[in-house]
């Protein structure tokens, strides 16, 4: 396979990771748009990034930068309602378990209120060990546990207040 094909495959494989990062930093209804913009950016700049040593890292960094630029103009938007519609009509469009949908919507309301760093580390904890997260986020392994603990506590507190 030629380099161009490899570059596109690498970007294609990054989709899930970019989506996971996007979920942590923007409302879930906007996450796919953010991934779209990021992938589009890199596909248009193939020559520049084709030989980049760490495409994944630079892509995640760019995704965060695009988010900063794009969401600057979106303050005041009622994302809670948009997210609810997105969850009902898109993620669970064929789901008959309405109790489950309500539970997920309630969780998302809480989840969207915690900090970006908490969302990111909680999402990572679904797939990675503490050791792997410490490498990915460049923090001590012991810090991973304590930070996760604080994030869950924050989530519970918001739930109690709400």
């Amino acid at each position: 396979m030629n380099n161009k094909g490899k570059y596109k495959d690498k970007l294609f494989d990054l989709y899930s990771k970019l989506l996971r990062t996007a979920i942590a930093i923007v409302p879930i209804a906007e996450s796919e748009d953010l991934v779209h913009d990021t992938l589009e950016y890199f596909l248009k700049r193939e020559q520049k990034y084709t030989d980049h040593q760490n495409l994944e890292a630079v892509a995640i960094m760019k995704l965060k930068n695009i988010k900063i630029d794009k969401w600057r103009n979106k303050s005041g938007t009622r994302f809670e309602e948009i997210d609810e519609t997105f969850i009902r009509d898109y993620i669970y469009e064929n789901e008959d378990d309405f109790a489950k949908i309500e539970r997920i919507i309630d969780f998302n309301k809480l989840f969207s209120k915690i900090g970006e760093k908490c969302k990111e580390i909680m999402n990572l904890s679904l797939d990675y060990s503490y050791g792997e997260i410490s490498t990915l986020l460049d923090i001590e392994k012991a810090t991973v546990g304590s930070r996760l603990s604080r994030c869950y506590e924050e989530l519970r507190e918001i739930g109690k207040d709400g």
Partner: protein
Amino acid sequence: MVKITDEMLYAFITKNVSIDESENIQNAIESDEETKAKYQEILNIRETHEEFIRDFEKKPMPKRIEELFTQTNSIKQNNFFSRFARGPLAGFGWIGFIITGLFVFPTMTIQMAQNNKTSNTMIASTDDQEIRFRGLDGEIMKEISIGELFKLKTGSNEEFEITISSVLNTTEQTCFTITINYDNKTANNLSKLCIDK
């Protein structure tokens, strides 16, 4: 008994504890109601979070993102030379187009002029060219009279005058007797020219 902290419970749920720690935590959950309630609460949050993220990730890649990858293919294939690679017929078509263009382009000005005969900006005309090449309109004789004077010019601009002196018309031939005048002098001899019918 070891005090079980929230951090230890999170580590237990996410399977980031050693076997010994795991046994201790498991025992604490089974023996202490408060620890059990806390564990259950954290576990519920964790399971809902995981369910939500997994369900979202199960959705197929959106069409508009898929199209990004196919669009870049079409951009790459859209250059001039790649058109030939799409199929031999397309290649022949383009070659034919180019060759036709090579023939048409040099005669374009003439064709334009021919289509604009009334225009003052006419550059050339195939009609004019035909007249010039033939160049005989003034010399075609419709009626020949005895003693009629014809003026001729050679290629080196020398002028001759020819006078028809007599015409003899038979069933087989038509004969002309002509006198040639050159530099205002009449030649002494008469020439006879006969054409078979």
